């Protein structure tokens, strides 16, 4: 019996999301000597998306229905529980994203599929599925095994697999939509755009990211002074926005902005992957953190292990000196 790999295509507003190509890369690797790689596409008028996907999968299962125009977990569940139970893929991959988080747990429960979420990698050994996960804020890894079953659901952390071109030419197979009635208990209404702020942090060559480690809002002015003297803009991690210390347009990360400055200095930021996704593209990364085991040091080029309340004023002094000279 062949063991096929399904990848659930993630797309939004007509664009295929990067995670899809990461999953297809992993899916291709897993499907060799086992079965086929199939991309599962739920949407409406999918032609443009199909063109993008063709080189990355062997088959595209295309489910076209006006009610799939925008993502809706309830419609996804109807379509996918039908499809997976009928086709019985060995592994179904999806992204640990706002999309995957919203439908994978209920889908796995509805059709009784073992599910491992937010995985960095997965391996198959003698038909047992093992996943590698990061827990406790990236300080510990764990290896998970999934209970024996005909199929498995695995969600993968964005950015953990480098996408490769696999140069396939997918065959497109239309699958009729099993959705019968309109659903009234969950309706997509509209997208709401992120509010624009006074500065665009993505345009600055030097970005100073501050995190929960600054502890109190009274330390903000010290950080503002520092950003000014080094000629950069102040940005931050999510908890700084949650606390109301800086506005949302300053947030770096998966639910904020992606910055690619020449220099990013992370001050009092632990290095959670949601933050790292937004700044790992910087040319030079410096981390200042009092915890030598903070995961941010695995992302940074240079690190200072120390108390930011002492390091920042000293650094500020030196920079002012240097710039004055």
């Amino acid at each position, binding site marked *: 019996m062949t063991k096929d790999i399904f990848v659930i295509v993630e797309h939004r507003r007509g664009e295929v*999301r990067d995670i899809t190509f990461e999953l297809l890369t992993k899916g291709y690797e897993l499907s060799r000597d086992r079965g086929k790689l199939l991309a599962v596409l739920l949407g409406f008028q999918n032609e443009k998306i199909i063109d993008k996907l063709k080189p990355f999968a062997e088959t595209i299962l295309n489910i076209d229905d006006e009610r799939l125009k925008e*993502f809706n977990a*309830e419609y996804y569940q109807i379509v996918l529980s039908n499809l997976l139970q009928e086709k019985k893929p060995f592994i179904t991959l999806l992204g*640990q994203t*706002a999309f995957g*988080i*919203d439908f994978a747990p*209920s889908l*796995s*429960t509805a059709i009784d599929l073992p*599910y491992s*979420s*937010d995985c960095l990698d997965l391996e198959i050994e003698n038909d047992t599925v093992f996943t590698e996960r*990061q*827990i*406790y*804020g*990236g*300080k*510990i*890894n*764990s290896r*998970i*095994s*999934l*209970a024996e079953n005909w199929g498995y659901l695995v969600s993968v952390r964005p950015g953990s697999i480098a996408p490769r071109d696999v140069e396939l030419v997918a065959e497109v197979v239309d699958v009729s939509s099993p959705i019968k009635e309109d659903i009234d208990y*969950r309706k997509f*209404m*509209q*997208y*709401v755009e*992120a509010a624009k702020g006074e500065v665009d942090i993505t345009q600055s060559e*030097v970005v100073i990211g501050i995190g929960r480690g600054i502890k109190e809002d009274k330390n903000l002015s010290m950080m503002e002074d520092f950003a000014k003297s*080094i000629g950069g803009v102040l940005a931050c991690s*999510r*908890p700084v926005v949650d606390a109301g210390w800086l506005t949302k*347009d300053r947030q770096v990360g*998966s*639910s*904020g*902005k*992606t910055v690619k400055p020449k*220099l990013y200095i992370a001050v009092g930021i*632990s290095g959670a992957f949601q933050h790292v996704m937004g700044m790992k593209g910087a040319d030079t990364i*410096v981390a200042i953190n*009092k*915890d030598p*085991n903070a995961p941010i*040091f695995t*992302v*940074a080029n*240079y*690190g*200072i*292990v*120390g108390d930011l309340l002492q*390091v920042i004023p000293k650094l500020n002094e030196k*920079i002012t000196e*240097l*710039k004055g000279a």
Partner: protein
Amino acid sequence: MNIAVCIKRVPETAEAAVNIDSSEKHIIPDQLVFDINEADNYALEEALLLREKTEGDITLFTVGSKESDEVIKMGLAKGATRGVRITPENLDNLDAYAVAKLLAEQVKEGNFDLILTGCISSDVGNSQVGVTLAELLGIPHATLVIKMGIEDGFATVQRELEGGLLEELKIKLPALFTIQTGINEPRYASILGIKRAAQKELRVIENITAEGMKAEVVKMYYPPVGKMAEILEGGVEEVSGKLCEILKGKGLL
């Protein structure tokens, strides 16, 4: 309106050293400080804010050890009506599915209009329990909720997508929402609240065994040392000087 809030006691690990015990399946909790999971605290606050606008009860549920009473009591002190702690005998090897099943068994008795959980727990971070619970209860859900309003038996919620984009949904109650951090400003318990909490009901469900686990921790290990920053050595004066030199050398100052 009756609201259920599912909360969890977790260790604070951002600033602490985290060590694995000899079984290689658990961490050593001894040196760690525990608190309510960050996102759950926002879920609790959202329930308290709603209750200020409508009549009704707030029931807190947790699956955890006896120590979890701390976070239940804190929630009661902030204004929740009652708490339920579920402590199965095999507490140490539950997966997210088993936790959701334990919760479902208790929550389904309660006739809740709304069930709130955090969107993720900061310890194992599966982001599974809330949505699994919704499926077991047969009610609609939305995850990563960052804004919520209730009117005429429907909730209008905004979910946070990537890049700061939001998605607005209309969902029929009863429903379950997993709450994202930043949706509100969680309050602190008052002294009076803490006194009152001592009189409130805290039901304990014990002598049960969880079943149906599908994911098992084979082992925990420390992340392999891969790429690592060049750590600048020396006192504050020295490291500041070194960093300035490096940045200057790269033309960044």
